[in-house]
């Protein structure tokens, strides 16, 4: 408490701040990453194929749908609401894309157009549901529960007795089944690393220009090196199999995009503000209703894209589209990754980390040959642990504020 703002900038360095954060209960992504490493070691010791190139590629493709849906729901959780409709919303989007590509002439659309329409339908439904929450004040739990039921009905009605709509469009099927050539993979890894380095450098330079101390330069450098290492490593592994999957590329692009929206734009700042203290946000002149509706639209749109990928992986949609454990997996992913259900705390990368946990467990348990009963029990236990951790850290955070 001694150093003052008035004195020439005595900002605690990043390391010190990290330590402070942990002490005051803000543990960030640390537990998830440790958990992931433990899970990986466990399954690798049980089955050598777990870390094989083929399996890692499978993992990326398997988890893509849930990850994208979870990224959308992170925004809803950030404002302290919930969206239970995302599962069947993704089913509806899958059905829309599938219907549009049937080559029967009447409604047929180009594959890319069909995908875009499916996403738009998801976003529109999300905005529709969100407006009940934002404008009328119906609890989001109930609105989206109604959505869960209704959209399930819609999926069943549209697919009807035929039971399945096969997808033959190349564009749609490629979202989950395209793999980049080896060279394209390397180029992507290089581009991503350069982008990451440029962003980090830009931040440092921006602060320097305004006379602020530039933070921890060695740490920033270490991060750039680590990121480059991981990027090239993943591509190297993927290239030993079919190549880097397009689904993985999509995950990275959307992760960067939504992280940017959440942390670097006015909109993102307002989302956090509404989640932290909606009344304060309102008094500060933020249009709270608009933020709420937009957030549900994001959730719906991302569910739509996730639905397209899930349909693409099976090259069809059937009566189960959007059902099963999809909804719970997506919300669990966001929460396990460290997004608070109380609103205001969490990051987009949480969706990826949480989805990785869920997907590695599912994939590993299948690989080792345990029953799916074990899968449910383990996932449930991890979810409980994650939420408990969040609640505890919230209490510590409140305490550290005296």
């Amino acid at each position, binding site marked *: 408490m001694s150093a*003052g*703002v008035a004195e020439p900038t005595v*900002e605690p360095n990043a390391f010190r701040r990290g330590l402070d954060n942990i002490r005051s209960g803000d543990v960030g992504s640390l537990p998830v990453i440790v958990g992931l490493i433990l899970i990986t070691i466990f399954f690798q010791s049980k089955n050598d194929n777990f870390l094989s190139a083929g399996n890692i590629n499978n993992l990326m493709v398997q988890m893509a749908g849930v990850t994208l849906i979870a990224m959308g729901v992170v925004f809803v959780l950030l404002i302290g609401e919930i969206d239970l409709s995302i599962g069947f919303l993704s089913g509806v989007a899958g059905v829309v894309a599938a219907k549009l590509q049937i080559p029967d002439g009447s409604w047929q659309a180009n594959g890319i157009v069909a995908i875009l329409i499916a996403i738009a339908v998801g976003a529109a439904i999300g905005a529709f549901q969100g407006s009940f929450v934002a404008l009328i004040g119906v609890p989001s739990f109930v609105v989206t529960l109604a959505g869960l039921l209704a959209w399930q009905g819609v999926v069943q009605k549209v697919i009807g007795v035929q039971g399945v709509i096969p997808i033959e469009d190349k564009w749609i099927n490629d979202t989950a089944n395209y793999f980049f050539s080896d060279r394209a993979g390397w180029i992507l890894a290089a581009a991503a690393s350069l982008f990451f380095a440029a962003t980090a450098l830009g931040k440092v330079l921006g602060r320097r220009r*305004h006379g602020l101390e530039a933070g921890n330069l060695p740490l920033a450098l270490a991060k750039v090196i680590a990121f480059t290492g991981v990027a090239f490593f993943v591509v190297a592994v993927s290239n030993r199999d079919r190549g880097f999957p397009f689904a993985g590329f999509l995950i990275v692009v959307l992760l960067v995009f939504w992280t940017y929206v959440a942390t670097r734009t006015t909109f993102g700042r307002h989302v956090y503000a509404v989640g932290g203290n909606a009344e304060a946000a309102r008094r500060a002149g*933020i249009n709270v209703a608009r933020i709420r509706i937009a957030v549900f639209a994001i959730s719906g749109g991302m569910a739509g894209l996730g639905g397209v990928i899930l349909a693409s992986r099976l090259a069809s949609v059937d009566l189960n589209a959007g059902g099963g454990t999809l909804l719970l997996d997506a919300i669990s992913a966001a929460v396990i990754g460290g997004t608070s259900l109380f609103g205001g705390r969490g990051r987009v990368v949480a969706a990826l980390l949480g989805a990785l946990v869920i997907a590695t467990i599912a994939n590993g348990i299948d690989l080792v040959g345990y029953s799916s009963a074990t899968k449910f029990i383990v996932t449930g236990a991890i979810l409980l642990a994650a939420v408990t951790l969040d609640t505890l850290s919230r209490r510590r955070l409140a305490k550290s504020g005296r």
Partner: protein
Amino acid sequence: MELRGISKSFGSVEALTDVDFSVAPGEVMALVGDNGAGKSTLIKCIAGIHAADSGEILFEGREVTIHGPKDAARLGIEVVYQDLALCDNLDVVQNMYLGREEHDLLQRLREPVMEQRTRETLAGLSVTTIRSVRQQVAGLSGGQRQSVAVARAVMWNSRLVLLDEPTAALGVAQTRQVLELVKRLAEKGLGVVLISHNLHDVFEVADRITVLRLGRDIGVYERAQTTQQEIVHAITAGVPTKVAGVAENGAPV
């Protein structure tokens, strides 16, 4: 700023009846009164949350109408509410700029600019207890939060700052900090309106004191020429001195 003959009723309840109130630049005007005396209502009329039923508001000599918080903000009137309206999950800079973020054409936040300006503002108010402006507000003490809320109010070239019970929830040392801050605001030439139940605090920083009782103004007292007993008497048993629209402000009871 000057308010003349402000009345406001909610249904059949007359919250304010023919109230006069004024505050000059560089002055701390305290607004005291018992619960239900109309302090909050008066503040809300100035802040644009309620519209007065009758009476006129003059700001820098011109008559103005305040229809909403935005009108008040445009005039340079900022309110620090009792509950501070800070977002715990955001850091100091983010809270200071809440709703008025600096951004470029692409809606990209200009963090370095905001951080720099926040530091300057806090330094300008000699707020030295906040270690890092990138600290979450959840981790700040009551006095530090109050400082952030006040600093936010003055950062926007405001002319008049209304403080609603700024010391109500604070300990002794933190109350000190906040009262020092209040004095500095006035030294910078801002008009300050301080609502408080604590007469000790009021006598420490206020230049003049307006007493409200049952929705009427009892009078305006010069701090230097009055005593706590006199104010307490006015709060609990004061009789309005204004008769038939003839103002005799300042007259002791």
